[in-house]
């Protein structure tokens, strides 16, 4: 047995029977006795990237660039290349990722398999919308080159396909041109949700990137207060200071979570009221897109038991009322979250059969794992989400019921015929069996 691989929230702790490092994309898949599943960089929260008693195919050494045309911005690389490495090569040449999650330590294969979204979803859709092609290696040795027109069924099944359709060996994407690595960022606080909706509508029309932080412990009249951030890539004419990233580590895992009701309350109050927050500033892309990457293993502050993420999407019609109810339940319950993020998705339909992003509003939260107490709270949130016709994000789930999944992803049954017979995941077994 090799080292146990965990997902980012360190819960659940499931052991694979075998870990197999893939480093040669030209080779066949190993002849595993149990089911297989690709493991990228383990930045999912939960069990989409885990396969208890099965075999994990570790892709971190499948990390070569294959082609980069700096005139057209088309990049092809192996699936284990991280977004961090891609950025380090493309940014100096005037290109950027068309869509990026809130950490750059994910692999491009993982970004594809969860069809991830960024702060610019309302303007450009998900990561999948920018994928031109990829190769899918199946356990029977077949190699399918998939594009929107070639093997297109597998194209749509594999984008957002949670790693179940086989191993993606390489991916080709269309990058977005930028004129500078810096960002213009504006921020504006809002006292309640009502105000959020109106600011959001106004800013979304003009800014490619928008996102809001909400204080999920504020109660009553202050419920739903927060800060709205909008941004765009800066242009060459702006003057730039130089940027040097420094990072920290959490040296040990504390026995109990340092994130608790009190620390969150204090943090939120200070963060919301911070008088020094400028309304408009120039920020390098790294701290803007990836503020959490500064602390290499911030997931440890939640202690040994780990934490749970909760991210839902709600259709526009029911979103206002449902978000209000969700925040009410959370603030009354008092199990707080530092990272409460609110954002609207645009109307571009996602390409994947099981893609999470869809028109509506998404709310993401994280909770220290207090066992039953936390699971009960999340169940009560599920109730609201389900009533509102919403869905939960598999990439950030470790506990939703099969019913909750199946309601949110009605194509799950037609998806099944694309699953590689030798592939499976703990997540998939949990929500379908």
């Amino acid at each position: 047995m090799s080292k146990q691989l965990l997902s980012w929230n360190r819960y659940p702790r499931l052991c694979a029977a075998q870990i197999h490092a893939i480093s040669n994309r030209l080779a066949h898949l190993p002849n595993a006795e149990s089911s297989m599943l690709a493991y990228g960089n383990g930045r999912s929260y939960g069990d989409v990237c885990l396969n208890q008693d099965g075999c994990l195919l570790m892709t971190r050494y499948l990390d070569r660039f294959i082609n980069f045309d700096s005139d057209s911005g088309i990049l092809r690389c192996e699936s284990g290349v991280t977004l961090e490495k891609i950025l380090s090569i493309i940014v100096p040449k005037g290109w950027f990722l068309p869509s990026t999650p809130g950490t750059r330590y994910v692999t491009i294969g993982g970004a594809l398999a969860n069809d991830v979204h960024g702060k610019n979803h309302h303007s450009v859709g998900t990561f999948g919308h920018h994928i031109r092609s990829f190769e899918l290696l199946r356990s029977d040795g077949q190699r399918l080159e998939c594009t929107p027109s070639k093997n297109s069924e597998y194209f749509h099944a594999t984008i957002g396909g949670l790693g179940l359709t086989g191993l993606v060996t390489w991916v080709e994407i269309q990058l977005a041109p930028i004129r500078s690595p810096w960002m213009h960022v504006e921020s504006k606080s809002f006292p309640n949700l009502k105000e959020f909706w109106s600011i959001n509508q106004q800013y979304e029309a003009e800014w490619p990137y928008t996102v809001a932080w909400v204080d999920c412990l504020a109660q009553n009249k202050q419920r739903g207060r927060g800060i709205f951030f909008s941004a765009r890539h800066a242009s060459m004419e702006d003057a730039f200071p130089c940027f040097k990233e420094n990072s920290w580590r959490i040296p040990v895992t504390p026995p109990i979570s340092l994130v608790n009701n009190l620390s969150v309350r204090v943090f939120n109050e200070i963060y919301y009221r911070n008088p020094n927050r400028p309304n408009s500033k120039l920020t390098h892309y790294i701290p803007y897109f990836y503020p959490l990457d500064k602390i290499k293993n911030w997931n440890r502050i939640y202690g040994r038991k780990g934490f749970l993420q909760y991210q839902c999407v709600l259709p526009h019609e029911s979103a206002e009322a449902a978000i209000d109810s969700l925040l009410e339940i959370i603030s009354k319950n008092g199990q707080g979250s530092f990272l409460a993020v609110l954002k609207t998705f645009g109307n571009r339909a996602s390409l994947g059969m099981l893609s999470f992003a869809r028109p509506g509003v998404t709310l993401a939260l994280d909770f220290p794992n207090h066992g039953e107490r936390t699971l009960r709270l999340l169940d009560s949130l599920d109730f609201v989400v389900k009533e509102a016709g919403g869905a939960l994000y598999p990439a950030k789930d470790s506990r939703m019921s099969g019913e909750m999944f199946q309601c949110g992803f009605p194509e799950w049954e037609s998806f099944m015929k694309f699953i590689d017979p030798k592939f499976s995941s703990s997540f998939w077994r949990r929500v379908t069996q």
Partner: protein
Amino acid sequence: MNELKKVVIFGATSAIAEHAARDLIDRGASLFCVGRDQGKLEVIVTDLKIRNSTSQRIEGYVADLMDTEGHSQILKVAEETLGGIDAALVCYGTLPDQKRCESSFSMARDAIDVNAISVISLLTELANKFESQKRGVIAVVSSVAGDRGRQSNYVYGAAKGMVSIFMQGLRNRLAKHGVSVVTIKPGFVDTPMTEGFDKSSILWTKPEKISKGLVNAMESGKSCVYLPGFWRWIMLLIRCIPEGLFKRLSL
């Protein structure tokens, strides 16, 4: 500080060498990459070219290094391609199945041929070349396994031990000519060579970590480095155990 602008890598498709190549291009080196598997070599050379931000040269060359007759030709082509050679990194080999070597002499000999004899052929060519140019770095990836014979892998260990001792002598011979002869002794490294091993102990290291130490040692012209450094102390201890006791241990 040794100059590392023109480097030849023997065994460029090995995990450790691939990471060393990335580190070397980050420091501005042009590379001549020798590997035996054309497909793998192309994948790696293409990747290195994209990672390389300036106009350094990166070329691949396919050769089975067991073919010692071809060694001088490889060096000639490398020198012409790069316009000289500052350093050579020898980083290839196989880890034979010890149990099978015990019942098959021809397997044991193959292991010794690839891990030791072919390396010595390369070193002979490299030594003469660097001796006459009066500068340069010769780095060879040996192993902690070469420090003391153990029942679990003494065929591989004997081959690595031969390389380590050969390197000692070579260092002694070339010191006065300004040539650095660097022996690298990694501990347990998580690479395809050790696929299937139980890697749960903390003694295992990632190849990208080994490669950093390796390139630093080449640059500063160290004589013999254990990677990670704590292996120096582990091996010191292991070498100190009296043979009477050692022969009874199951290591």
